[in-house]
């Protein structure tokens, strides 16, 4: 069967197993080498691609819930959507959520995903209490901050390379309402948006949409979106219906003029410097989920997402360098998202660390790959790194420079029988064993 990530680049032929239970997972692992676990396939590039795949779609069970503490135990294949659907009406939400709810719990842990509250509440792995992990030798172990902590840390953010995550438990967050009070602030340039992030550092959720085609004095013009859980209002889940993109769009559709026009309208539609409204959590956290298969907008060749983080020490200079380089190339992205991260954690391969992160989409084409290689140099030069869950093309050198703890990661994998057993096309490209 053909498989690809969310970016639809690259595509590969792979042989997939669909185990129905942990024991069946163990027999898949015993009988295959160089395999990788795959959830809903929402990592963008080649993290969930390998010639042999273990698909967790049928491991989608809730296993336990403690109504007093909010601790939820689930099998790894359950989606965040299923969790929200069941628990929002009961007054609970996710402690951390990425920009789509169509990822699995296992994927959220393996990519140590972050959300709009990273600056206050950290990444997903920071809320996980323990994980049941299937090792390369078929053994099942429980790992946590106190049991095999080095394996626990390597598994959170470890891209499925330490073993198969079978189940995990984590704390849900109590909510009074499914509504979010959303405030939008207009920032006319890069300094203004960075200052706005700092002024609003105490707000739980924040993210900025940035016009990456704006140049000169307007470079970095943005809309900062802030959110807090509302104390009032219903606890509701919206209907399941979403629109879908029925076929691949013509490749020329998202050209420079289209993006420029969109950006102008989008920025311009917010008339006031600051405005607030009450919105449903789905539109606040998952604006793109309304359009199923939005990845088809980029047409047949697919697209690549480029997300990096620059440390605080890079100041605004680092972001300015990157934005100027992109604006000069004219290969702007519809969705450019800027976010301030809080402190990072101890996981060797977790992406977030203190500073600013910027995420961009580019159509997969040769000139773009060249541009990204140049951006890599700027990012690494400032001491930054790229997000593995988005990556489809970074070099081994870029990876190793950005993730200096990679050797520690390899040592843990070696100790726990992962080497030779678990690998993805990405891990091989990055020089992991």
């Amino acid at each position: 069967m053909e498989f690809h990530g969310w970016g639809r680049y690259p595509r590969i032929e792979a042989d997939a197993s669909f185990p129905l239970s942990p024991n069946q997972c163990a027999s898949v692992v015993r009988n295959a080498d160089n395999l990788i676990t795959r959830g809903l396939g929402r990592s963008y590039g080649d993290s969930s691609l390998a010639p042999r795949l273990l698909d967790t779609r049928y491991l989608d069970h809730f296993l336990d819930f403690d109504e007093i503490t909010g601790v939820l135990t689930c099998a790894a294949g359950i989606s965040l959507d299923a969790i929200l659907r069941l628990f929002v009406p009961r007054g609970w939400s996710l402690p951390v959520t990425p920009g789509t709810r169509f990822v699995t719990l296992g994927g959220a842990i393996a990519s140590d995903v972050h959300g709009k509250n990273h600056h206050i509440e950290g990444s997903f792995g920071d809320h996980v209490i323990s994980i049941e992990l299937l090792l390369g030798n078929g053994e099942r172990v429980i790992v946590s901050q106190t049991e095999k902590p080095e394996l626990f840390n390597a598994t959170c953010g470890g891209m499925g390379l330490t073993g198969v995550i079978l189940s995990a438990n984590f704390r849900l967050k109590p909510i009074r309402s499914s509504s979010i009070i959303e405030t939008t602030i207009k920032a006319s340039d890069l300094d203004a948006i960075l200052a706005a992030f700092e002024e609003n550092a105490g707000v739980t959720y924040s993210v900025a949409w940035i016009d990456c085609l704006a140049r000169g004095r307007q470079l970095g013009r943005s809309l900062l979106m802030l959110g807090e859980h509302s104390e009032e209002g219903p606890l509701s889940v919206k209907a399941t219906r979403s629109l879908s993109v029925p076929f691949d769009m013509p490749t020329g559709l998202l050209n420079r003029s289209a993006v420029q026009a969109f950006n102008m309208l989008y920025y311009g539609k917010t008339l006031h410097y600051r405005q607030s409204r009450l919105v449903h959590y789905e539109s606040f956290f998952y604006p793109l989920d309304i359009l199923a298969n939005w990845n088809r907008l980029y047409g047949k060749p697919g697209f690549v997402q480029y997300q990096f983080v620059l440390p605080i020490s890079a100041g605004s200079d680092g972001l300015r360098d990157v934005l100027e380089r992109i604006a000069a190339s004219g290969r702007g992205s519809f969705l450019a998202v800027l976010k301030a991260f809080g402190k990072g954690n101890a996981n060797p391969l977790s992406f977030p660390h203190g500073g600013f992160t910027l995420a961009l989409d580019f159509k997969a084409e040769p000139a773009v790959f060249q541009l990204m290689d140049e951006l890599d140099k700027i990012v690494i030069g400032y001491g930054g790194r790229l997000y593995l869950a988005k990556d489809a093309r970074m070099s081994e050198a870029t990876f190793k420079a950005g993730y200096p703890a990679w050797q520690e990661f390899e040592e843990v994998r070696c100790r726990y029988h992962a080497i030779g057993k678990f690998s993805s096309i990405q891990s091989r490209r990055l020089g992991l064993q």
Partner: protein
Amino acid sequence: MKKILIIGATSMIAEATARLWAQRGCRLYLIARNEERLNSIAADLKVRGAESIHFASFDLNDFERHEAAIDEAIEALDGIDIVLIAHGTLSDQKSCEQDYNLTLQELNTNAISVISLLTPLANRFESQRHGSIAVISSVAGDRGRQSNYIYGTAKGAVTIFLQGLRQRLYESGVHVLTIKPGFVDTPMTKGFKKGLLWVSSETVAKSVIKGVDRKQDVIYVPWFWKAIMTIIKGIPEAIFKRISL
């Protein structure tokens, strides 16, 4: 709060249906072979809101155990309002053509075991004079086709058995629902290339719930299979035998 027995509870359609019943706070009893998976499903249904969950694991081809297992289930549920029978295997037509024993096994699993289960169940429902019997049959049972007539024979037998049972139990106010899914994307059909006609087990589950709630007799899932099968059934045999279907 309904008391529901689900036989073949690890089938994807049964599981998806059980989730919807669990969310309504129903009391559930599950029977299936794979105990490890039953454990996960039971835990899952509990978290989703089922009032209580019990289960028993054994091979449904062990007909001797049917009656006792049903008694145990009804006792644990403290009565019974609904039974859903959903177990089955997708027979390998080519192998069955070569080996009668394989054919017999497929007929046992997909037809005779259902009839064996429904014999004590029907009597129980008849004497209590209420409730719903829902059984997963298949569009394959509507007309024999060379590509899967062994499976079709079994499902056809189930469909006809249910037609008779429906008439018999009508007097006692017991509802009998025949569910005929088309192509459903489950582990049973993983070897097939999926196209537009395929649906998820969640879609089938919603129809099953609706069929039970509204006391429908026969449902095709999705609905368009009724039109497709009407056309297929309408083709004269003299022409039908020449078609490769």
